[in-house]
């Protein structure tokens, strides 16, 4: 599948094995406005404003009510509004219900479809690969290049197929699957690879779940992660605002059905996992690869024979304030964050609400929907009331505490159970300690005040 999409988008062969790759969709957010400035200063224009889409998610506050922010942030968001208006780029801005996390709204609007190349100045762009698209994150220089030329010089990555087969046990979901995958191949395991997720477990997943899996490909080092399109994909897309319709839908569908990898496709690397081996999973350290079943204990550096790995383990435990060999379920939590481009879609909120219903949060717990439309859909189902009655805070859409750029961060030393994607040192605030887990597990931590095996509730 990767090869088919890649080959179909080569504009020209360049030196050193690089090709000029055409880009079908370019997503922008307020953190990428610097590229507009450089473009303007060099007297260049946006080549295809009709293939570019913008929203504001990274810097806006998500406090309930209207997203008010400091003057500097307002300036950034206004600059994006100005640039997009000047260049005639569609902008889902403040006050537009379609505004939200860029990786939530692309699929939601039907901008993401199978077989396309899609880029965004954000490393979690692989999310869109859930639709059988080649989607990857780029830097600011590359954003400027795409704005000016609608193309990118790229070197073809190697391919890796990760197959997960069998039925997931109760309380185990897509987040646990991707954390288990990262723990297995390592944070650098996918470097210079494009991953295809396959197998019956992935096939059985909804689009929301597949997006959770693809989203964290970069946490295994891979810029792109994808799932072949199937009936689940088509059913999700049918009727979305920007998805093709009528005759175009039929034409597109015929093409999409030819995308999946051929039976004899060869991958540079194959990895297989059994669904039955995956438990509800949680991270204990400062890399997403530091993930273990919730039934496990904090690792012991003394048992590590490699000196380098022992030193890095000791450093992680020191930062996390954890003692070796302590059961993970005894780790007390100070706050809970449910949201981010990994886990802020309707199904994520439903999973968290199922646990929150009729219980009471004993620590501050935020629920941040992925978009204005996710928020409205959740409210229509009454999920907001489930959360607020359980003492959770129901907030506006945005990236919020996942990246902390907007100032929504945890305090030094605070321990956060978070459905986001990174547990790096300082990610959720200077000195903040992050445990990554699924929405259901996060809700369980909120109502018990400790890391909890959701299966025991």
């Amino acid at each position: 599948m990767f090869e088919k999409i890649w080959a179909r988008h080569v504009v020209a062969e360049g030196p050193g094995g690089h090709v000029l790759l055409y880009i079908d969709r370019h997503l922008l957010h307020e953190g990428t406005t610097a590229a507009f400035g450089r473009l303007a200063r060099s007297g260049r224009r946006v080549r295809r404003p009709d293939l570019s889409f913008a929203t504001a998610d990274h810097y806006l506050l998500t406090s309930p009510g209207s997203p008010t922010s400091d003057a500097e942030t307002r300036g950034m968001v206004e600059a994006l509004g100005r640039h997009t208006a000047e260049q005639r780029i569609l902008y889902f801005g403040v006050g537009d219900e379609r505004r939200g996390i860029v990786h939530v709204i692309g699929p939601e609007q039907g901008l993401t479809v199978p077989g396309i190349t899609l880029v965004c100045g954000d490393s979690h762009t692989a999310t869109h690969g859930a639709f059988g698209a080649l989607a990857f994150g780029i830097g600011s220089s590359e954003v400027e290049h795409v704005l000016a030329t609608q193309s990118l010089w790229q070197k073809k990555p190697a391919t890796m197929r990760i197959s997960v087969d069998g039925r997931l046990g109760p309380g185990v979901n897509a987040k646990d699957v991707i954390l288990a995958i990262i723990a297995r191949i390592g944070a650098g395991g996918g470097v210079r690879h494009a991953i295809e997720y396959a197998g019956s477990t992935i096939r059985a997943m909804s689009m929301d779940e597949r997006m959770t899996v693809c989203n964290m490909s970069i946490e295994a080092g891979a810029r792109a992660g994808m799932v072949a399109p199937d009936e689940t994909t088509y059913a999700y897309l049918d009727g979305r605002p920007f998805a093709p319709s009528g005759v175009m839908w039929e034409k597109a569908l015929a093409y999409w059905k030819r995308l999946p990898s051929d039976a004899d496709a060869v991958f540079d690397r194959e990895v297989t996992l059994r669904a039955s081996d995956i438990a509800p999973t949680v991270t204990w350290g400062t890399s997403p690869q530091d993930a273990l079943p919730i039934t496990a204990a904090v690792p012991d550096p003394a048992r590590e024979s490699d000196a380098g790995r022992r030193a890095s383990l000791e450093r992680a435990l020191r930062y996390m304030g954890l003692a070796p060999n302590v059961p993970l379920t005894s780790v007390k939590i100070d706050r809970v964050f449910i949201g981010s481009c990994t886990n802020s879609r309707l199904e994520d909120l439903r999973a968290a609400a199922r646990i929150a219903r009729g219980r009471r949060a004993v620590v501050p717990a935020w629920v941040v929907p992925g978009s204005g439309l996710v928020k409205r859909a959740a409210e229509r189902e009454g999920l907001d009331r489930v959360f607020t009655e359980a003492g959770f805070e129901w907030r506006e859409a945005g990236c919020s505490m996942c990246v902390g750029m907007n100032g929504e961060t945890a305090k030094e030393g605070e321990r956060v159970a978070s459905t986001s994607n990174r547990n790096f040192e300082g990610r959720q605030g200077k000195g903040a300690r992050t445990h990554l887990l699924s929405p259901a597990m996060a809700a369980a931590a909120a109502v018990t005040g400790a890391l909890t095996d959701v299966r025991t509730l």
Partner: protein
Amino acid sequence: MQAFRSLTAVAAPIDLPNVDTDRIIPARFLRNAQDTPGYDRFFFHDVRFDAAGSERAEFVLNQAPYRAAQILVTAENFGCGSSREAAVWAHMAHGIRCVIGPSFGDIFFNNAAKNGLLAVVLPAATSAAIRAQLHARPGASLSVDLESQQVTDADGRAHRFEIDGFKKQALLTGQDEIGLTFGYEELIADFERRQREEMPWLALGRPQS
């Protein structure tokens, strides 16, 4: 973009694997433009400085022999995580022009080449051996020559590295990549014509809100 041809300079070892771009420049500094005065302070800020803003003595770049470092020798997967190009800008602001290691985060690796920061891939054992030299002889220099694709370690031993011709050319000349791509304008336009015929569903009507 600044060109890179060759460099002989003090090198500092960074031993931790998986150093992420959040650590290289924390998110709260990303709202600052690249030309902000004092941008160098953001580089590894939270491991370099304590809460009072004083230098942490244990951080390698705060130690006298390594202060002048223009080269970092790293461990696996350096620059993983977020796509922030600011991680590269912070290196440049601190005067780092070359990073050497067994592997790099893919986005960081690409961003580096577009800003004149040379990322050199050497085998894990070689990278570890050079880091050991730098620990044993603090303040030792390395030489990096892009034309001949060679790193000369602190013992004077030469190690050849691979780099693709595209990145090499860009770094040697400091070329404007967008300007280069404009030379392909006709091919891009041809592609777009073909795309319109073969995948007409990709052309978007404008907002039907």
